[in-house]
């Protein structure tokens, strides 16, 4: 397109020839740049496909041996070549649900604070600080959880919750180590908050000022503006953000493995050890006993991959399908 306007001095044969060489070079350059950009874009798609293929390939032995009963079976005995991911799935579900139920409201409250309440200077400091929470490597957060949070949970949090809400089966008798599903969930809460908070904050900022002012002018209190205007216009986006946070919680391997205590049974009591799919892979893969063991861990990865992709696609779909039209750029 732009090569058609290459300047050529009329009647000047030397520059004419130079111009056409330049023209050819430009044509080549344009095509080459397009080609490598396209190649890079295709590479991204290939990576996703390749990841799925390799994980399925690694899991194939376990899939053919255990089939779908792997998902519900709760026995995990590498020495006897018996594997079932039921307890791991349960642990994954409980920790992620806990992280979301506790983390999402806190994160949304933070986002509301940053957009509606905080004075400009304070918001400009706290916003990045909350995002910095996400920058702490999971291995360091997990280490902190192991050394600081777990003893604190054991000595203070768990006994308190047990004595106050002990009538609920989830707050049963605390364990002696502090390494439990509960501690792992707390670590996940910390990891989920910055993700949900930063997306929600951007969403809340996109709510038209006039709508909020209109509600205020009608006599709505600040909370009523939030409840009646801000949240309804951004609800789908907030749900999508929460699902993204959930995806993060589901797949977190390292930090969880450091504080969850590696139990293999299903308990309703949160204060007992458990394990998740991701953390089981992280802990057992480096020293797997046999090929079937490795393959079973790949199978866990495959389950995780499927859940993760579904959650992500769901978040994308909700974000687009139900997004408030006025907020769209």
């Amino acid at each position: 397109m732009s090569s058609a306007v290459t300047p050529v001095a009329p009647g000047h044969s030397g520059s004419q020839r130079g111009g056409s060489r330049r023209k050819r070079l430009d044509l080549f350059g344009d095509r080459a740049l397009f080609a490598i950009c396209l190649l890079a874009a295709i590479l991204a798609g290939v990576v996703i496909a390749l990841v799925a293929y390799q994980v399925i390939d690694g899991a194939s032995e376990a899939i053919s041996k255990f089939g779908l009963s792997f998902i519900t079976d709760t026995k995990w005995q590498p020495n006897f070549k018996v594997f079932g991911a039921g307890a791991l799935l349960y642990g994954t579900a409980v920790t992620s649900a806990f992280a979301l139920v506790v983390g999402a409201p806190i994160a949304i409250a933070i986002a509301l604070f940053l957009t509606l309440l905080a004075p400009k200077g304070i918001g400009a400091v706290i916003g990045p600080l909350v995002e910095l929470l996400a920058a702490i490597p999971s291995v360091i957060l997990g280490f902190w959880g192991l050394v600081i949070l777990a003893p604190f949970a054991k000595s203070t949090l768990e006994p308190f919750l047990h004595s106050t809400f002990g009538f609920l089966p989830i707050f049963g008798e605390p364990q002696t180590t502090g390494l439990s599903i509960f501690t792992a969930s707390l670590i996940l809460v910390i990891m989920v908050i910055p993700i949900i908070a930063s997306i929600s904050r951007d969403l809340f900022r996109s709510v038209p000022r006039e709508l909020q002012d209109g509600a205020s002018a009608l006599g709505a209190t600040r909370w009523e503006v939030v409840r009646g205007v801000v949240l309804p216009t951004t609800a789908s986006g907030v749900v999508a953000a929460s699902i993204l946070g959930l995806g993060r919680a589901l797949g977190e391997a390292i930090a969880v493995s450091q504080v969850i205590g590696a139990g293999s049974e299903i308990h309703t009591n949160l204060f007992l050890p458990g394990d998740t799919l991701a953390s089981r892979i992280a802990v057992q893969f480096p020293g797997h006993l046999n090929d079937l063991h490795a393959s079973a861990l790949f199978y866990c990865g495959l389950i995780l991959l499927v859940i993760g992709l579904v959650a992500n696609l769901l978040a994308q779909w909700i974000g687009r399908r139900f997004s408030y039209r006025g907020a769209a750029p």
Partner: protein
Amino acid sequence: MSDSRIPDPSAPLTPSGNLRRRQIFSRLTEVGATGAAVLAVGVLIVVIYTIVSRGAPAISFDFLFKGYPDGVGPMILGTFVIVAVSTAMAAPVGVLIALFLTEYAGSRGAGPLRLTLDLINGLPSIILGLFVFNLLVNHKGTSGFAGAIALAIIEVPLIARGAQEVLLLVPKALREASDALGVARWRSVLTVVLPTAMGGIVTATVLAVARAVGETAPLILTDFIFDPKKFSLNIFGEIPNAPVWIFKLSEEGTEKGYQEAWGLSLVLIVFILVASLGARALLGRSKRKLSS
């Protein structure tokens, strides 16, 4: 009913009844929201404080530059090498993808590509470890290179997203001026668009590096067994690296190991904080420069 028609002029101007209840409730939610923000910042401060107060005593010249058991030099060097290699792979790909998104893909091509990037970004990092394990390690053994590939996959979407944001900010007038001078597209991309956006691209890359430095899950499957005494630059062999070392020390649970792990955590955290805060400040500046 009858006396409400004529309000008492001497009554104090404070709300009562329903309005009062609503205002109190609103106040409570404000306190709650503020409390949530304080809580999050408090957790950050507690974590950072713990790392600094427990890690600082471990830091010394020997600790930073000597091999095990005196220090963690090989791990720091190895992490540097792995992340450098992964960034060398990820940065060009990320920038090219961003260019494709802004220059070539219409809205029809950009949608699926952006979705793909989001999906890659959302993949649990342990899955990437499994992927690279089956692709490379299973046949050739663990290596820093295998880890670097996994880290590169993590970095690409981050760099592409960041680069795309700044590329979109490059003023239209610059492009049009370049077109009007009859400059071919590839020339204007290379000589006008990319240099203008360079600041933002660099910061996006730095942010991606800050993320990759601490990634542990992929390395646990690809570069787990190494000699902590040996300084190694050979990317195709096992390279000691900091995140996996912290993980190992925390699993071991010895007092000396813990202290070493805190020290190494401090090194990592300082690097990450400096990189991400610096990059953010730079990004803000270059964005303001572009949009003004």
